[in-house]
């Protein structure tokens, strides 16, 4: 058990016995060990340290070397043993040797807490974020929302490469249509609207009271009621401040889901997929509410709501049966159409047409060359 006393400082060859570092200097001390009721570490007969077996812990070491530390010694004091028999004897006496090293129970705890964290994040995403969006949206000042809208408008125009259409007769017809809807729905004239020369059949609302219609949708429309319904739907989004709410909702959800997945995916496709699952269910509710608003507005004008559904149907086709509706951001078109049909059945359309045939033709050709597109 005694170590060789001819240990030199340059220890390219391991010496039998033990080497001690006292934690105060890095001097290698060749020591003799004695296992009594505690571990006695002696250098040239002088007692350097006495370590109680229960306080001895294993430290990281290469294969074939036992490296020990002790709770009551200086934190970096180390004892290194290469002798296999001595190692076995010491290991047998030290009960808590591995107590501070990461072990199975530690890993189980990490897994357990991680899952708990994941569950709580999911719960916050499903319940907390919609609630926060609901409560925060009314608190956002109008001026801030308008600024957001300006930024978003600039981005949308770049994204869809769409120029605003301003054919004079068409613009007059469009303003007449929007004006009627606006007055009926009770908006002041701060609402900005326009038609963009883009072949995509779509329309949308932006924060701060902006409604945009794409020429692609105009090209597919067959009468003014169809377009009026769509615009009323977008005004519904404005009334409910849906884009602001959606912004808070999306921002919070992406942040939390990003937090959840950390670096494992490099914040890639998985985050996008799970986020779209969560946010689409939320946006379906918003769409249903906007539809309700559109139906009410159209009925106040004495016009049917169903044409809007028909236009939708023309654009999307039948949606049911193709995949699941879980990830769709809008309710199924046929369901929306059926709902509008049912709502119209209560009272026949009695109001005047919103636009004259001439005005309708002017609106259709507001983008000039846009007629032949799509």
């Amino acid at each position, binding site marked *: 058990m005694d170590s060789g006393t001819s240990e030199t400082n340059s220890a390219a060859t391991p010496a039998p016995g033990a080497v001690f570092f006292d934690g105060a200097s890095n001097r290698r001390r060749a020591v003799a060990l004695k296992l009594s009721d505690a571990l006695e570490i002696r250098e040239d007969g002088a007692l350097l340290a006495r370590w109680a077996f229960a306080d001895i812990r294993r430290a990281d070491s290469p294969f074939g070397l036992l490296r020990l530390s002790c709770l009551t010694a200086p934190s970096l004091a180390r004892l290194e043993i290469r002798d296999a028999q001595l190692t076995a004897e010491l290991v047998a006496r030290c009960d808590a040797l591995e107590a501070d090293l990461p072990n199975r129970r530690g890993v189980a705890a990490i897994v357990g807490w991680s899952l708990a964290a994941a569950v709580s994040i999911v719960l916050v995403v499903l319940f907390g974020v919609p609630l926060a969006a609901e409560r925060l949206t009314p608190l956002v000042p109008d001026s801030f929302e308008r600024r957001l809208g300006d930024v978003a408008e600039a981005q949308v125009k770049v994204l869809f490469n769409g120029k605003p259409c301003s054919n004079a007769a068409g613009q007059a017809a469009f303003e007449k249509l929007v004006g009627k809807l606006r007055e009926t729905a009770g908006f002041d004239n701060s609402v900005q609207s326009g038609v963009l020369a883009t072949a995509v059949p779509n329309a949308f609302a932006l924060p701060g009271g902006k409604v945009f219609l794409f020429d692609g949708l105009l090209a597919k429309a067959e009468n003014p009621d169809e377009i009026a319904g769509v615009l009323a739907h977008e005004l519904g989004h404005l009334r409910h401040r849906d884009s602001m709410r959606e912004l808070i909702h999306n921002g919070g959800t992406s942040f939390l889901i990003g937090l959840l997945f950390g670096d494992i995916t490099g914040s890639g496709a998985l985050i996008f997929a799970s986020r779209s699952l969560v946010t689409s269910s939320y946006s379906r509710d918003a769409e249903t509410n906007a539809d309700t608003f559109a139906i009410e507005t159209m009925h106040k004008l004495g016009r049917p709501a169903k044409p809007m559904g028909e236009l939708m149907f023309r654009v999307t086709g039948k949606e049911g049966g193709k*995949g699941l509706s879980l990830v769709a951001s809008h309710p199924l078109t046929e369901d929306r159409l059926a709902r509008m049909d049912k709502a119209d059945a209560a009272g026949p359309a009695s109001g005047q047409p919103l636009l004259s045939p001439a005005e309708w033709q002017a609106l259709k050709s507001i983008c000039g060359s846009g007629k032949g597109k799509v």
Partner: protein
Amino acid sequence: MNDMSWTPLGPPQPPPQPVPPPMPVAFSGNRKEFFRLVARGAGLELVTLGFYRFWLTTDIRRHLWSNTQIDGDAPEYTGRGKELLIGFLVALAILVPIYLGYFLIGIEAEHLKAFASLPLVAFFYLFGQFAIYRARRYRLTRTVWRGVRFWMSGSGWIYALKASLWGVLVVITLGLALPWREAALERYKMRHSYYGDLQGSFEGRGWEFFKRGWWLWLLMPFALYSTIFAPFAYAAFKAIEWRWWLSGIRFGEVRLESTLRRSALIGLYWKVIGWVVLLGMVFAAYLVLCTFLVASMDGSSIATFFKTEAFAKSIPLIVLLGIGYLAYALAMNVVMRVYLMRDLWVRVLSSTIVHNIEAAANVTARGDLANALGEGFADGLDVGGF
């Protein structure tokens, strides 16, 4: 023990006689064991949705540190995963309000005019450099050799400022100033690094780095142009950088030297590329298989499946693709860690020689532990570096 010949510290002494032979650094770790460690870690990362990364990083470092032998003794990594987790959480608590502020200021800046948001990018660059300094400080203070720890003084913010100003110079000179930037930053880092009471220093000169690597700077346009060429150029650059960096490191009278050849790392990078291609092909085959499978279950032909865009809405397909994507990401993680951490470490180490290790024979322990905030920032901001 009494006739030992260590050099006492303090007043300069004549060099010890005879001069001890230069000491190569050895690595004794088992590659299979490392692979098992990383593969198991990747699996646990999946189960814990990524949270296990703090403990995996710690285990990897423990393995690499404790199997590296310098003068017959292996260092020890005393950091723990929990410290990294706490560092990450604290960094998060600081970064979240900053991100929110960034968002609000960004809107204002965009509103005013385009390049107004540039200072914000600079701010995050500064933060990233701070993270690099503090992360190295954490790692160094968790490194123990012969019962004495390394430690670091200095200021992360001064370093970040230096790094940013040098960064501007590198951009202005189209990368030519890079060697001098690295030399200046490393001088700052090493001047504030200690092993016990032994102060570090860095003797690498920017000019030496430039002399070895200037031709790479000339070749850069080709490397950017041709993808076949890029791995060669990058591997050569990294090898030159490693060799220059290691050869400049000093702790007191202890001197490191590296004999790493320029071509030493090329094989490693090509192996990684080979694995990326192979795994990519497997993933692609899996995609095609899943699509056919789901389409046939759906009862529609492949053509209509794609034409109606039903494939984008099919839940089983999305789930299958998600699983495949995760497996792909995890396999990539394992490949990166085995080749670019373990194998790279071994290759660089095997070229390293320690001169005059006797000068570190009787070092007095000093220095305190640093917290893991820098590691947390580095994780949160996704900056690499050492």
